[in-house]
């Protein structure tokens, strides 16, 4: 008699059941709620005032700033492409090209140093490898002392990696410049420290996620730990490692630009310098040049990662 209604209620029941069985992630939800509370609290308590942007004085300042973005020889005159091009060419020849090259060089050295450090540090940080009998079932339980030694090696490496990556590049550079002086090498080292921490963590996870059985069979054939690393782990992990390598190199290019503001003669140096002298037109050119280098770096890195993903 009430077949349609019945089937509808059946469907409703089924839907209700499905809804009840949906995956619920309490922790993620609670975290989301907490984060929204923090956001609301920040907006209310952070002393953000819109009139910072729109008070008459600020607007005047803003107008002056926009006016000063015009190349200096052309300020207050009609626009002339030839003058603008000559101004730009001069700026690039005296500062732009050299600073851009230094920026790239710093980023490349930084990421290579970081990669070497990360490869080395990821081995003792990997749970599977840094054990008394890696990849093999124990014939007899290892002594408490040996287990403790391996665990302390593992944990001290991990703490070092966390420390390295928790301090931002800019702060590492700030500290290193006080020690090494404002040379490009302080910048490269600062970038290498932070990125070494990140790459080390990522590749330690990569080593842990390798298939255990094949490494175990190497060990069962009598390979020593060093041989397992060279013949088993490195060849298997290097593909993923190169992906991370290029992905972090992108960030290194961005950061290498900025570190110049601390005194290293990369692009940031000239950005800081022209800002201090209130040459907003030059500052704008250098910022755009930095953004261009970042875009080119992104494209190169994306192409390299594509090659690595397909062929390595």
């Amino acid at each position, binding site marked *: 008699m009430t077949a349609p209604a019945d089937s509808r209620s059946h469907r409703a029941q089924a839907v209700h059941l499905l809804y009840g069985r949906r995956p619920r992630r309490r922790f993620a939800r609670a975290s989301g709620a907490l984060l929204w509370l923090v956001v609301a609290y920040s907006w209310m308590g952070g002393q*953000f005032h819109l009139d910072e942007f729109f008070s008459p004085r600020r607007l005047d300042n803003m107008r002056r700033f926009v006016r000063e973005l015009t190349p200096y020889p052309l300020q207050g005159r009609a626009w002339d492409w030839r003058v603008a091009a000559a101004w730009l060419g001069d700026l690039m020849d005296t500062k732009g090209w050299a600073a851009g090259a230094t920026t790239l060089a710093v980023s490349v050295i930084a990421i290579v140093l970081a990669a070497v450090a990360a490869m080395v540090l990821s081995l003792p940080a990997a749970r599977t490898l840094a054990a008394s009998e890696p990849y093999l079932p124990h014939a007899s339980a290892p002594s408490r002392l040996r287990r403790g030694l391996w665990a302390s090696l593992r944990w001290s490496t991990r703490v070092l990696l966390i420390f390295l990556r928790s301090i931002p590049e800019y702060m590492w550079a700030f500290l290193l410049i006080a020690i090494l002086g404002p040379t490009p090498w302080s910048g490269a080292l600062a970038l290498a420290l932070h990125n070494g921490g990140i790459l080390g963590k990522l590749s330690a996870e990569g080593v842990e996620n390798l298939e255990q059985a094949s490494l175990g069979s190497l060990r069962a054939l009598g390979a020593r730990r060093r041989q397992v690393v060279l013949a088993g782990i490195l060849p298997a992990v290097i593909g993923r490692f190169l992906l991370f*390598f290029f992905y972090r190199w992108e960030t290194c290019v961005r950061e290498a630009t900025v570190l110049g503001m601390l005194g290293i003669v990369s692009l940031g140096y000239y950005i800081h310098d022209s800002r201090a002298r209130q040459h907003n037109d030059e500052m704008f050119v250098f910022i755009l040049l930095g953004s261009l280098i970042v*875009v080119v770096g992104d494209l190169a890195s994306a192409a390299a990662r594509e090659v690595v993903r397909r062929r390595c």
Partner: protein
Amino acid sequence: MRSERGIAPRPFPITARGVVLILIAIAAAASVAHLQVTGAGVAPSRGGLVVAARFLSRAASPALHYESDVPPGTVPLMWKAATAAQTTVMFAAAATSLALTGGIVLAFLGSSAWWASDPVGPSSRAYWWQRRLGPCVYAVARVLTAFLRSIHELLWAVLLLAAFGLGHLTAVFAIALPFAGVLGKVFSEMIDEAPRDAAHALRDAGASPLQVFFFGLVPRAFPDMAAYAFYRFECALRSSAVLGFFGFPTLGYYIAASFENLFYGEVWTYLYALLALVIVSDWWSGAIRRDFVV
């Protein structure tokens, strides 16, 4: 015969991997040559070594009180560090929320799954304006995200400081603008790569493109998007701390000030405060990622 040829070594046994590694080595060598390894550049000077020794010797004993005489009534050092940490979190949270808003809009406008003439395969009915405007809006959104992303947050800070002067909103926007670009790019890629099964089912049931997008595609990408948003919050924390070097009252400001006054113990106090923030948020976003994956 054939098997023999299969075993025979190739004349040039260089794999793609080898080529990549060699190119990296060449780039590194060229960079080293460009920067010129000079003794003074690589080895620290004696003064530098003294600074390093003094600084590192305080690592295990961060200051609990000010290392200089302060006027009476100054808040205790620990309280000051806590306040600086709080400001750091506030800037980061405000910036992340702004960046999320902008990033979601940019991701919607810049996702090829939405603008493609056939969003989720044949027989889907695109709106007429979607077909007409699609390529233009898609291109503009993509260029805008690339532009926002390509300027580092500290350079945005320099630009905004020059344009508007020092204010808390300046810091928030300096972080939010590039982060909106990053989120827009990553979110749109996540939406484009999300499984299309639910979207196809909705389309076949007669849903409109908007419904397909928001109820078929976005929910499949949501766990990845949420986890990534938390990760960006962690990045925002670091950026917010660094913005202190530009005069904003976050942790970086106090680190720079104490370091320049040679109060290395105080520097470590603030550094450990930053470390605590970053480690907690790192653990938190990791836990959320694991919660989503399982």
